[in-house]
């Protein structure tokens, strides 16, 4: 610890000032901040789109938007939230925390790190600009199924290019993370001594490198189908539209785990800290994460049970999908065992982590139900599915990001956030997220299809409740923005440890963490 403090005194911080600093920075903390701020902006943009959707669905009949625009909103909401809000949030956390947690001075490839962030803003400008192009933004769903997606107007090549850029950014980020974790751990930190957040990110980075090129291939084939006369996915030329779905979901299912494995890592950091007890079953956590990553590559066709598939295929994908419940269950049980006989306190990060455990588990239950092919035929493409993946992504992945921000914010800013406001943020978010998504289970079971701008009258009541929840949840996030601004600006001084007895190297450096840390590797 004295080493790093000593080193910090000799380095003043960023070499450039103002905008130029942020454009040219190669510092992992600066780049982490850029990613996190970008992610927050995209979260609000994607949230605004969700509120347009929920406003139209407040009551039956078409009141506000044209169905084509509605479809653009559902498509863009998903793309913005997945590629703009969630993935950059996790990469931002990785940038800030991985060097601090493994005792490295920075990421292994700092210039590439700068580049992988700065690809993002132009890519999203391009994607959002498609809303103003003739024919509008893509409206075929984020899954981009042909032939429908090929009916996109002039925006089509821009969408494909923008997704290529996002993919490139993710792959560069993933390479950087793998190289950093593999080569720059402090002496004495073997693989099986790495914090869980580092472990889950290592595995996630491999998933990214495996999955993103597959998406790139699929969208390139769409591009050539549209402009260069190929017929990969067009039946008229001997192609097969269902082939696209196989390729897409071979990317898409690992993508789901890209969005949740780092969340598992975050929860595995937070629960032990506020239980004042070591994480239960570290080894089995590592094994379970690896098992989930492996299984994620052999379950893709469970998104496609209604497309017409050989019976043996359906059975295979049903069983492989059900087996994901086993390692996921192990994780939940390990968290419970960590809490068991601990000394638990309920600071804001812990509250979000506990809500994650409960609500993610509910999402897991509906996931298990969805795995059963005969029942899935009925659930498929209904609001039951919408409820399922929003439970794992909103009170799942997003809650984990929020928990992580509260957990490490004092380390980043040197100030304690306002605990009372943090708790208000937690309770409002948790209540409204359930008001928002729980009724959608019932809508799906009662047969409301997803991606419709208008619905039959029997679905009115639950849609109204859901829309009220959506506005409540959306507005609660403004409170989050306020807490963040307030904490960055000032507040009670945070100590180096911040919490009672947290484990890990990041707590050995002062708060705020100096611009340069661990220039001399710490001893583990």
């Amino acid at each position, binding site marked *: 610890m004295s080493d790093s403090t000593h080193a910090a005194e000799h380095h003043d911080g960023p070499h450039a000032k103002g905008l130029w600093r942020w454009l040219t920075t190669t510092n992992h903390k600066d780049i982490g901040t850029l990613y996190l701020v970008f992610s927050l902006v995209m979260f609000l943009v994607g949230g605004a789109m969700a509120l347009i959707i929920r406003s139209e669905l407040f009551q039956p009949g078409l009141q506000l938007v044209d169905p084509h625009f509605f479809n653009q909103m559902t498509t863009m909401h998903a793309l913005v939230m997945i590629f703009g809000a969630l993935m950059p949030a996790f990469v931002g956390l990785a940038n800030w925390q991985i060097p601090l947690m493994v005792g490295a001075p920075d990421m292994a490839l700092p210039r590439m790190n700068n580049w992988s962030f700065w690809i993002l803003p132009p890519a999203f400008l391009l994607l959002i600009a498609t809303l103003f192009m003739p024919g509008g933004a893509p409206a075929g769903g984020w899954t981009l199924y042909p032939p429908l997606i090929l009916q996109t107007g002039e925006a089509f090549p821009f969408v494909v290019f923008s997704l290529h850029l996002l993919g490139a950014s993710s792959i560069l980020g993933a390479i950087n993370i793998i190289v950093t974790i593999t080569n720059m751990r402090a002496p004495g930190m073997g693989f099986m001594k790495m914090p869980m957040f580092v472990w889950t990110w290592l595995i996630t980075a491999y998933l990214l490198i495996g999955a993103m090129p597959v998406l790139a291939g699929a969208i390139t084939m769409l591009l050539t189908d549209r402009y260069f006369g190929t017929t990969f996915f067009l039946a008229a030329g001997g192609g097969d539209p269902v082939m696209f779905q196989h390729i897409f979901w071979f990317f898409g299912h690992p993508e789901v785990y890209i969005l949740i494995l780092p969340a598992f890592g975050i929860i595995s950091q937070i629960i032990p800290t506020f239980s004042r007890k*070591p994480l239960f079953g570290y080894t089995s956590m590592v094994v379970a994460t690896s098992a989930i990553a492996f299984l994620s590559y052999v379950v893709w066709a469970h998104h496609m049970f209604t497309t017409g598939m050989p019976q043996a295929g359906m059975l295979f994908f049903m069983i492989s999908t059900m087996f994901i419940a086993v390692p996921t269950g192990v994780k939940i049980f390990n968290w419970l065992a960590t809490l068991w006989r601990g000394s638990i306190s309920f600071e804001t990060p812990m509250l979000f982590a506990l809500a994650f455990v409960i609500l993610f588990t509910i999402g897991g239950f509906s996931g298990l139900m969805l795995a059963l092919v005969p029942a899935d035929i009925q659930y498929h493409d209904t609001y039951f599915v919408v409820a399922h993946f929003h439970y794992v992504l909103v009170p799942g992945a997003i809650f984990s990001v929020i928990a992580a921000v509260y957990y490490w914010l004092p380390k980043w800013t040197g100030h304690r956030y306002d605990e009372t406001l943090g708790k208000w943020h937690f309770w409002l978010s948790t209540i409204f997220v359930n008001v928002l998504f729980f009724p959608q289970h019932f809508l799906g079971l*009662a047969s409301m*299809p997803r991606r419709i701008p208008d619905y039959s009258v029997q679905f009115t009541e639950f849609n109204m409740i859901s829309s009220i929840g959506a506005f409540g949840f959306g507005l609660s996030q403004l409170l989050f923005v306020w807490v963040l601004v307030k904490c960055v600006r000032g507040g009670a001084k945070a100590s180096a440890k911040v919490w009672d007895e947290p484990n890990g190297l990041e707590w050995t450096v002062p708060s705020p963490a100096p611009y340069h840390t661990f220039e001399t590797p710490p001893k583990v």
Partner: protein
Amino acid sequence: MNRSKAYSGWIIAALAATTLCAAGPAAAEWALDFPASATELGGKIRGLHHTALIICVVIGVIVFGVLGYSLMKFRKSQGAQPAKFSHSTKAEVIWTVIPVLILVGLAIPSARVLIEMEDTQSADLRVVVTGYQWKWRYEYPDHGISFFSNMTEESKAAAIVGAGHELHEHYLRDVDNPMVVPAGRKVKLQLTSNDVIHAWWIPDLYVKRDAVPGTINETWFEVGEPGVYRGQCAELCGRGHGFMPIVVEALPPEEFDAWAAAQTMAGSSETALKTASVAVASGPNAQ
């Protein structure tokens, strides 16, 4: 002070929960579950869904029970001292093996129902279903019947932005020409599409299958009782996706035969007329 804040949080949570629960059973339209099935196979699917749901609820009660107990019992504010343990091979083996057993127990009945669902052999009637943006076409190859099925004008008029029309009971799930089938007979559907992917779905029949261009998908159903069953397209297919209703009218077999005969007659007289006009147009004088 901290204490009172924690309590206010609990009170908000409790209030929200009560509002939701109290509102639950109040009205008839608050459907909470799969619809009652109109087919025998659908009943089995519904049963499977209930089995899975009950298993999940039981596991949920146990898991959340243990969690709740820990949060009450092992609070720092109650003076709880942390234990030191960090693994137990025995516990880990138990909570790996038990889920595996539950899953196997769930997979077996699912596989049985699946095999039954996929058996499209020995059907009594075949209907070819073709999806269009945004309507359906039904063909009965063995009867020479073919017609389009559109959303009714009444629903169309109401489904315009800001129309503000009174929405009738079957708003958006009302068609001009329903698919007509005999009750108590096995009907095989062959699905395809003319443009983009659609999905043919009647919730009460527990049938959903994609209509994919260039492919013929098969599925089947056997309606128990005569009646009208409503659904809609389930795969995003563009601007009119929400306005592509599906209605099946199941008639007693004799009435179905009468309907089919009348349609065949009407169809063949139309065809005869067309043939006649073509013959005239391409007759000797046409050259």
